[in-house]
């Protein structure tokens, strides 16, 4: 089983910071960076398979295709249970959090700036232990 970690955000600086933190926390040395939703969907659509899993850090507010549109599109993908999504947003709007919970792929909702502790907690969550136990 292979876990592909992706960071989808149009904020290049955030992507840089995220890359550092994912490396520091041992989640991913070289995550795939996408700057819009379209790009992310293309990547996932090309690679998705029975034994291929994705951990997607997804921003909501993005050009071309925002986070919601990505989540909507993922519903139609094969093996949707293989895709785990973590929303990472600067919004503190409760409506956004409420909406995010309606998607089955969502495993966490993080408010920017992301903290190490949040990532470590995510790493040890039941969704991901399979990938990080060895």
């Amino acid at each position, binding site marked *: 089983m292979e876990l592909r970690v992706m960071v989808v955000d149009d904020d290049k600086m955030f992507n*840089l*910071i995220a890359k550092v*933190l994912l490396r520091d926390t041992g989640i991913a040395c070289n995550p795939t960076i996408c700057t819009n939703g379209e790009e992310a969907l293309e990547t996932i659509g090309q690679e998705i398979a029975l034994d291929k899993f994705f951990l997607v850090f997804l921003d909501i507010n993005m050009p071309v295709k925002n986070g919601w549109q990505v989540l909507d599109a993922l519903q139609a993908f094969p093996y949707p249970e293989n895709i785990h999504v973590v929303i990472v947003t*600067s919004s*503190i*709007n409760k409506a956004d959090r409420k909406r995010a919970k309606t998607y089955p792929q969502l495993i966490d909702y993080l408010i*920017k*700036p992301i903290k190490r502790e949040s990532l470590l907690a995510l790493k040890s969550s039941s969704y991901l232990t399979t990938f990080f136990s060895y």
Partner: protein
Amino acid sequence: MHKEMEYTAVFRVSPTPTLILLPNAPLFTIVDANDSYLTLTNKQREELLGKGFFEVFPTNPYLNDNEWKKSFDAILSTKQAHKLVPQKFASPAIASPTHIDIKYLEIQHTPVLDDCGEIQFIVRSMTDVTESVNHGKFLQETQQAARIGSWEINRALQTISWSQELREIFEMGPEYPLDFHSAMAFYSDTNDRKALSKALQKATHDGTIFRIALPVTTAKGHKRWILTIGKAELVNGICVRIYGTAQDITEKKNTEEALISSEHKFHNLIQTIDGVVWEADAETFEATFISDKVKWLLGYTADEWLADPGFWEKNIYEADRENAVSYCQKHTKKSANHTFDYRMVKKNGDIIWIKDIVSVISESNKPRWLRGIMVDITEAKRFAELNQLERTILELNEKKDASIEHILSTYVLGIEALFPGMACSINQIRNGRLFSWIAPSLPTAYLQHIHNLPIGEYAGSCGSAAYTKKPVIVADIANNPLWADFKEQPLNHGLKSCWSSPVVNAQGEVVAVFGIYYKHIRNPNEDELAFIDRAGAFLNMILENHHHAELAQETTLMMQQGQALAHLGTWQWDIESDHVTWSDTLFDIYGLDKAAYTPGFSAYLSRVHADDRQRVYDILHNAIKKGKDTVFEERIVRPEGEIRHLRSWAKLVLKADGSRKMIGACLDITEAKLAELALNKLHAEIEQQLKIVAESEKKYSNLFHLSPQPMWVYDLDTYRFLDVNDAAIKHYGYTREEFLAMTIRDIRPPEEIPKMEAAVAYSKQHDELFTTSVYVHRKKSGERIYVEVKSNIIKFHGRKAEVILAHDISEKLDYIQAIEAQNKKLQDIAWMQSHVVRAPLARIMGLADLIQHCPDSGIESDELLGAIKDSATELDNILRDITDKTEQISR
């Protein structure tokens, strides 16, 4: 031989003159004559013996020889004794031979028959009846002295002459013309005339004397009886004259007729007495005479009775024997005539009741003979006893506690006592089957056998009688087709004959069968047949009566129950005696104990509610005074103080003896009365409410018209406006008249009509109060308005209608729309704050964290600081933008 000689001696000295002749006609040889005969005829025995009768007695001066000849001839032909009328004989007197004695002798010729029935001798015996004839003659002559006349018919001269006496008898004057025809004309009856002519002709022909008594009508029209005696005088066989006497025997004839009539009556009387005449020795009771009728009475002949000295006592029915004999002995000793009843057993075993009427004949003050007459009174006796039995049964039947089985058993046992040897049964018939019911004298095993057998044409006597509804008499069970399939059982129990009579009720159904069994073969006699019919009718009466009594009992019970259920009590008041009777229910209504309370008029009044008492007293007294029925209501007070309301009826009844009685009934109407009172109260309350409603209606009407909000009423069927208020007129722009000419469709835009119709249909079906909904209406000006409608279903002048309160919320809706638009802007600001404002801020915070905690991130410090500066600039721009937008909203 010795005996014969004895008889001859006896014969010779017999005082009756007797002659014995041989039947050798025409000689009639004399074989013997006794001494009396010889004396009478003044002959010697030798003159007679061996001579022919007519040889010795060639002529008779007074009688034609033919009479004797005829008598002998009659004997020879009939072989029976023949008696001649007394004959007159002249015989020389013994004392003085010159004197002739005239004797009247009654002669009887009697044949003596041999073993073969042939005539052996003819015995000619003579009885001297001179004295009695002379007496009769004397009497006759005495009578004739006054009422006798003579007559003569001269055939040669063709004349007829009557003596003066005769003319007087016929009440003819001396001038009355007399010839043969006028003389015959006195005989008014044709047959009488013929008889007289015949007698005259006969006399003319043979010269004999004739006697004839005939009724005549005298010249004056009186009825007389005339005895005519005449004789013809013949000369050389030719009649020259006829002469004789005619006697008025009217009185004698009348006496004779009376006597004959009386004798006739007596004879009839004797004949009609069904009695046996008897005579017995008063000492030994041994019968010395018993009339032949005994054969008819008991079946034994008189000889059988006479042959047995103890016959009478032996044949008395055992139960009566001692009493009957001692009764008779007791009265005989006292020489007292007596009459007593007892039963005797007939030769065929039947038992009959005898009434014995006994005369005691005493000699020298000592009872010597008993003479009596025994009469069969069985029928009368049974009739009387049956009457008594039936009376007993009827009395028993009237007793309420006597069961029908007890009554019928008593009857059956009574019948069996009346008819010794009889065993009776009463079987019930139900659904075409026979059920053994009452039979106290029949064997139980036999009864069990016949129980529950089907009835039918050939189902024994009882089964057949039930089937055919007619009496069935079977004298011999063993040989009767009706018993062919059943005879074994009765015969095994010794029952040999069975007579049955069906008991048919008023509906023509056979309910029971009365059966009579005997242990010998037996046919019923007339009395028993009559009894069978009577028993059937009597049983029917008892059973019907019982049935009716049961019905009556049920009815009474039902009536009592009905009274109790209806709380209807009844009463009777004998006004004069103030005796009052109450029904059980009435006691219940008054709450009184029947055993402890005696009803009476004043006692009753004291129970009536004090407020009603005088009124009730007046009503009842008025009813008595006017004799009119009355109905009234009253309240009574029960012992524990409870008040009950009664509706009472009273009726005055005048009894046959003139006394007055009042009868009545009381119905406990308390519940109904209380309900009525409650209802009245309710009505009063409702009326009060209605009054309030009427007042409030006015208020509501005012509220409708004065309401500041538009209101109208429309017809749910036609949608037409029925009423509108001023506010509606003002708000919608139509006049009242315009409204009333419109329907509710007319105040709506076309696209709203389906919605409106659906709402109306819903209202019609659901009848809900106060529904609220929002609709689009159109004013007269064409302006659309949003209206919140509140409605309610009402009756408006008899029509199902809906009242509408329309609240124009168009303005309110405008406000809401404006607020919603503003909200949208605020939401946009919030979103912007969340996403746009916080994005650079979060980036700055992230960069700061990186610088602080990850000095070895691999990212140049300049790049990090430049990113912080860019983010701060971006944040500044965003805040400016937000300020602009906020200013827009507040504007």
